[in-house]
């Protein structure tokens, strides 16, 4: 059942149209992540849900109540900010209890709640400190504690981990996932880090220029993108894209000419009419090096060793390079000529409007 319903939401900043008709429904307990390139409107959407920005059209409904015009303080949402935004003049304990004190909760209950939250976030020893006496990770935990102590209807996070170093970020990511499991409260999370998006989300919302590009589970977005934008946005390294101009139907297959060589693509996986030209999308992990009889061949430009795996940059022609994933202890050398086999079942076709025109094969 829909818990938070956003209908045709619009936001204009003077002449700039930042949100262009957002429609989204979120069920109770879901972990939804907004991702997208910088400036696409993720923060604006989150802040409009929070009521910190007013919308210029559309509506927001939470738990059956229209909150479009309700003040932030009355929406019963909690927010964790990128800059933590702790109250500098209050101790950690006072930061945690601020909302409860405003809500006139009894002293005994406040004490109990602060105690249990600070215990679960390992803040017990820091309760009497001021924010400026805390490390970044500790501040982050206080900010999260301040949000959960209230038991709000929805948690809103705006890039909460982006100010932490890499190791701490991984640790906090896990803690957040654990927290969501434990509390079961609806969470909306903004990030530009796709690892965070893929690992935390039940559903990912991909935004582009103020519009929703696609909504789906992390795996759906990875395997069945709707558009070239989503296909390129999800996955590191990026999906390889190769333009193909000659396509002919060949019984049950489409013969697609890729840089002079032919690949056969099952015709039943094509949506709609046969196009004149397509862009073929292949992820780096869906190609393997072969001795002979490959679909593509090229010369190795550079090999990047990441320890657990390696990525080879391949020059296919004068103006086409691709990246392939190779085993960790690959013997590939720069300048070497290699041949590649493509996993046809994993390739995706795009039309000239960058929409996907292929469907994934049914699992065998």
């Amino acid at each position: 059942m829909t818990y938070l319903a956003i209908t045709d939401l619009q936001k204009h900043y003077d002449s700039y149209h930042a949100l262009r008709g957002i429609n989204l429904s979120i069920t109770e307990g879901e972990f939804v992540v907004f991702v997208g390139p910088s400036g696409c409107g993720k923060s604006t959407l989150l802040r409009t849900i929070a009521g910190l920005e007013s919308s210029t059209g559309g509506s927001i409904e939470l738990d059956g109540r229209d909150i479009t015009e309700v003040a932030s303080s009355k929406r019963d949402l909690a927010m964790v900010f990128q800059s933590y935004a702790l109250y500098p003049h209050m101790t950690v304990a006072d930061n945690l209890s601020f909302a409860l004190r405003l809500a006139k909760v009894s002293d005994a209950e406040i004490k109990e709640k602060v105690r249990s939250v600070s215990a679960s976030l390992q803040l017990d020893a820091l309760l009497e400190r001021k924010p400026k006496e805390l490390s970044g990770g500790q501040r982050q935990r206080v900010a999260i504690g301040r949000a959960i102590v209230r038991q709000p209807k929805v948690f809103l996070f705006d890039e909460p981990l982006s100010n932490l170093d890499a190791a701490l970020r991984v640790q906090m990511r896990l803690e957040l996932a654990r927290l969501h499991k434990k509390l079961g409260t609806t969470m909306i999370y903004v990030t530009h880090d796709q690892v965070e998006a893929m690992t935390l989300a039940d559903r990912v919302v991909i935004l582009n220029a103020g519009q929703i590009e696609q909504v789906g589970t992390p795996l759906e977005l990875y395997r069945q993108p709707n558009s070239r934008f989503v296909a390129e946005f999800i996955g590191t390294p990026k999906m390889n894209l190769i333009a193909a101009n000659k396509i002919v139907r060949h019984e049950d297959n489409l013969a697609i000419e890729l840089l002079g060589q032919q690949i056969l693509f099952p015709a039943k996986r094509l949506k709609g009419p046969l196009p004149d030209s397509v862009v073929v999308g292949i992820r780096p992990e869906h190609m393997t090096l072969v001795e002979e009889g490959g679909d593509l061949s090229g010369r190795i430009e550079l090999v990047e060793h990441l320890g657990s795996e390696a990525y080879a940059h391949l020059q296919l022609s004068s103006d086409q390079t691709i990246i392939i994933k190779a085993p960790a202890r690959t013997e590939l050398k720069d300048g070497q000529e290699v041949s590649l086999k493509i996993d046809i079942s994993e390739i995706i076709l795009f039309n000239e409007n960058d929409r996907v025109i292929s469907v994934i094969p049914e699992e065998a």
Partner: protein
Amino acid sequence: MTLNQQRKLKTILTGLFAWSVALVLFFPIFWMFITSFKTELQAISVPPSLFFEPTLDNFRIVQERSDYIHHAWNSVVTSFGSTIIALVIAIPAAYSMAFFPGKRTKDILLWMLSTKMLPAVGVLVPIYILCRDYGLLDSKTALVIIFTLMNLPIIVWMLFSYFKDLPKEILEAARMDGATPWDEVVKVVLPLSVGAISSTALLSIVLCWNEAFWSLNLTASDAAPLTAMIASYSSPEGLFWAKLSAASTLACAPIVIFGWFCQKQLVQGLTFGAVK
């Protein structure tokens, strides 16, 4: 010269420079203070005498001729009263302009400042007539109103520039925590601005304390503050340097002492306000 010596020399030179500037600035006050303990004859003697037998006569005469406590009380009431009223108006004004700026906020701020560009004497006649018609001549009420209006632009500006630098997200966090605008101001903005508000208040008090133009023109005796009392010693009967100095010393003593005491609070307040 080694680097260390150079550094030492630099410290000494800057120290010397700072001290000379400080002495030049302080000298007139020092001279006034000294003169207030001289007889009228010593006060005008050339060359001025540095060593003399100090006398308290001037202070006694000043207290006899004009009721010091009466004038000091007027100064306290007008400067503190107008500062408090101005703060009550300026804090919400600066808050709304800093956190909810509109299209015309910058213009309003500039317009407020521009009122300070008008010479006070330009509005003397209308204000004098207004005070006369409302029976406010020689009343503390008139001075409080005038002082409030006079300092309001500066107070709003100072608070505005401080509030503007407070991280907006802290207020947004409070809003998300369920704070009403009133809670936001009282529980977040004010505690974070103790230093800024007290230094602004001190400035306003000092400006009111030393205000002479309106005090002289709108009061006679009942509401006359200390500045008006000093002025009465440079009268048509002639200048009495020693008595004038004694009156001036008495007039600035309270505010100097007050400022001295506030110094600690101010420094504390300012560092306490350090956000982040």
